[in-house]
């Protein structure tokens, strides 16, 4: 690895960049630069602002404040086209492929007009290009038919086609096996030796320390400093990534409420992006599901809820679980609190009252008509119990804060007496601190009633404080299990960032 001297020109500069999405401040006053020929890693937990920063650099997002310079030229109006013209290439975490077009067509669209070959010579050109980057892919195959690893490598090649001065890689190894990681790093380092500045975003610290010259750490959208990678260890990076002094009062774990009765048993469950998974959750237990984004946690939860279709078996309370549809999962007593609250859990334009009682209307009605007074009483009681803050129960839920929205979706398991398992996906994302603890209390209260709860969260502090046991997923499998005295924020983060490749023998 070539260590660029301080004389190397700076190819990318972000100066005092801030960006908010609605009420959430994603990055705050971050400055960052990348020199020609260096690999500059950007690390941080999920939601620490890494992807936002890349979006700003690439022109896909407009910053609220601050400026971006690429190759010494200051950006005017941010647009991806302009950034590319200035010499910036980016491999997106979620890719920029048009899935229904062929590999050749996707490559063709990714080169600047000036260097595009004639349309008729596209296939030959694409073959030659792939050869140059030592990537073996059928040029006529539609991208949809490629594996995720192939799509990832293609994405990087696309970013390199315009001969960029600076290359941004957003979590480029999530879908890759060890051999492919090698292949990718080889490709990247070769460019680095040719003088390209590389910004490498990843949460996999061993990889980062293996490839980077410098490291910048982000936490909650704020830069924690830039360091020489040679002087850093995984531990020192983890400390910078979490380093939260705050200790909150999480609800007491009530060991009396827990039993050894297995409520949810999963064996050999497989689905899109996860599996096989074997797991048992007991009555009254809160199980945490940790892992870096995109390692199958969401798919696993959704499969249990009947939203996605798995193979393998799962049983609930001794009965085999039918995961054909959300309805059959609900009938079995499994309720999913989706991470996409307004998209999947709630009816944003309907009132708090309507959202609360939508699943139990039959119980509140007589001869097909709703008894409003009874409904109102039910809702009022829950609003008090969960401390939902609003002007009136007739207020549309879309006008509530994120935390109060989440509490509204939490009313449903309280109303259904038959709930056995709650699957909570990011229950406190976008939720302010006060409301967070109300939500933790509510979940713990349900657990104490004998319900089994699985919480998928990208916040290790939350998992450490709330859960009785935490499992860590990587590349679709359970790679670690943490419980008892071991259960701490630091241990979880280490398990996530250290989760080296455990499987693979394809």
């Amino acid at each position, binding site marked *: 690895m070539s260590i660029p001297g301080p004389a190397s020109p700076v190819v990318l500069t972000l100066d005092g960049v801030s960006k908010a999405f609605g009420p959430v401040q994603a990055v705050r006053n971050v400055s960052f630069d990348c020199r020609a020929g260096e690999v500059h890693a950007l690390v941080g937990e999920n939601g620490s602002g890494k992807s936002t920063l890349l979006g700003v650099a*690439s022109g*896909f997002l407009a910053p609220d404040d601050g400026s971006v310079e690429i190759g010494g030229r200051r950006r005017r109006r941010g*647009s*991806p*086209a302009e*950034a*590319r013209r200035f010499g910036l290439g*980016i491999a*997106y975490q979620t*890719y*920029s*492929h*048009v*899935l*229904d*077009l*062929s590999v050749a*067509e996707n490559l*063709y*669209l*990714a080169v*600047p*007009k000036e260097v*595009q070959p004639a*349309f*008729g010579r596209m296939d030959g050109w694409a073959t030659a290009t792939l050869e140059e980057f030592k990537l073996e892919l059928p040029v*006529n195959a539609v991208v949809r038919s490629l*594996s995720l690893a192939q799509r990832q490598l293609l994405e990087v090649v*696309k970013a390199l086609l315009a001969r960029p001065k600076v290359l941004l890689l957003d979590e480029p190894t999530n879908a890759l096996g060890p051999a492919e990681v090698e292949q990718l790093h080889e490709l990247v380092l070769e460019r680095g030796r040719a003088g390209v500045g590389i910004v490498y975003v990843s949460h996999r610290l061993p990889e980062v320390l293996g490839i980077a010259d410098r490291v910048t750490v982000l936490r909650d959208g704020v830069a924690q400093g830039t360091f020489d990678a040679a002087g850093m260890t995984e531990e020192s990076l983890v400390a910078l990534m979490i380093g939260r002094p705050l200790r909150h009062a999480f609800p007491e774990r009530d060991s009396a409420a827990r039993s050894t009765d297995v409520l949810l048993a999963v064996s*050999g469950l*497989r*689905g*899109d*992006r996860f*599996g*096989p998974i*074997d797991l048992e959750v007991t009555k009254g237990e809160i199980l945490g599901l940790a892992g870096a984004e995109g390692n199958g946690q969401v798919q696993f939860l959704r499969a249990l809820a009947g939203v*996605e*279709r*798995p*193979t393998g078996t799962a049983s609930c309370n001794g009965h085999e679980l039918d995961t054909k549809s959300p309805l059959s999962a609900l009938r079995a007593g499994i309720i999913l609190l989706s991470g996409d609250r307004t998209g999947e859990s709630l009816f944003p334009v309907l009132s708090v009252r309507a959202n609360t009682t939508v699943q139990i209307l039959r119980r509140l009605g007589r001869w097909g008509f709703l008894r409003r007074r009874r409904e109102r009483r039910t809702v009022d009681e829950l609003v008090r119990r969960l401390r939902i803050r609003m002007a009136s129960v007739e207020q549309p839920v879309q006008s509530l804060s994120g935390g109060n929205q989440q509490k509204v979706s939490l009313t449903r398991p309280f109303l259904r007496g038959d709930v056995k398992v709650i699957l909570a996906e990011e229950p406190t994302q976008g939720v302010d601190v006060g409301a967070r603890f109300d939500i933790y209390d509510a979940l713990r209260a349900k657990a104490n009633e004998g319900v089994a709860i699985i919480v998928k969260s990208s916040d290790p502090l939350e998992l450490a404080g709330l859960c009785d046991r935490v499992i860590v997923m990587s590349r*679709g499998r359970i790679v670690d299990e943490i419980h008892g005295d071991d259960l701490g924020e630091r241990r979880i983060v280490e398990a996530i960032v250290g989760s080296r490749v455990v*499987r693979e*023998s*394809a």
Partner: protein
Amino acid sequence: MTGFRSWMPLALMTTLIVALGAYAAVRQDAFLTNYNLGNLLLSTMPLALVAIGQTNALLVGGFDVSVAALMTMCVVTASFTLQPDKSWPVLLVGALALIGVGVATGVFNATLIRVLKLPSIIATLGTLSILEGASLLLRDHPEGFINADVIEALNSSVSFVPYAFIGVVVLAVVADLWLYRTRTGLALRAVGLDDTSSRRLGMSTGRIVFFAFVLCSVMAAAAGFYSAAQVQIGSPIIGNYALESIAAAVLGGASLAGGKGSFVGALLAALFLTEISNVLPLFQQPTEYAQMTIGGLILLALVLYQGPELVARFRSNWVGVGRLRARAPAA
């Protein structure tokens, strides 16, 4: 175009046109006459042009339901600007006025869709209403004849084939070559298939969608000329071209999800749909059947063309599972 699936609509339409034509020719002598065939091709013109326009809107993942109202507006405009007693220079300006109405409507639609971010179906529904009202304001009942020389010029033909039809065939072929054999054609399809990825790849997706909707309206205005030549009077009521143009585009292979379609396919489908209306009277069948047949055909086309895709998408879940299972070592 690659693969059988993209050729299927063209093959199916051609087969149906020939089959229906052969059946009609065997059973009715009146079908295979120069007069009837010329008439068939001429009456295909409005639908062919507007279907080609509609294909543009569908390619970028939108709909334009204002096309019929725009055609009506063009006919009404023609009854003022293309009147019988006008001289040729005046008529030329009058013709440009029709195209102007098309461009203005297209820019209006495209602005609503791209700048105000309205869903295309809602935006063009609003435009439809405005244009319909304006047409009725200008002509509350059919009046104002259209210049006979203009009509004759539009209808002129070699043997039984109108020049205009030859022109539209050439246009459709060239447009398909553009769509599938050039960079900009590829860009248009890419935007229709995946807007986010296209933007990430540095394409000006806004400009492309804008262009597609303006082109759609201009083609509808061109279709207005041929409607004017058919009705020959400033009538505020023209056929149900909004639905039929979408029907023709979809029968011709356009995907309702965007990114797929064929201009030649749209032309063939327009010819086939017109052929149905042409043949039915020969058998003393009410033309209302044509409308019902068209409705049934749209549904059939959707199932035939997009069915395999839906099934594939449904199956891919299971294939994905199978692939994982094959890769994973025995647990």
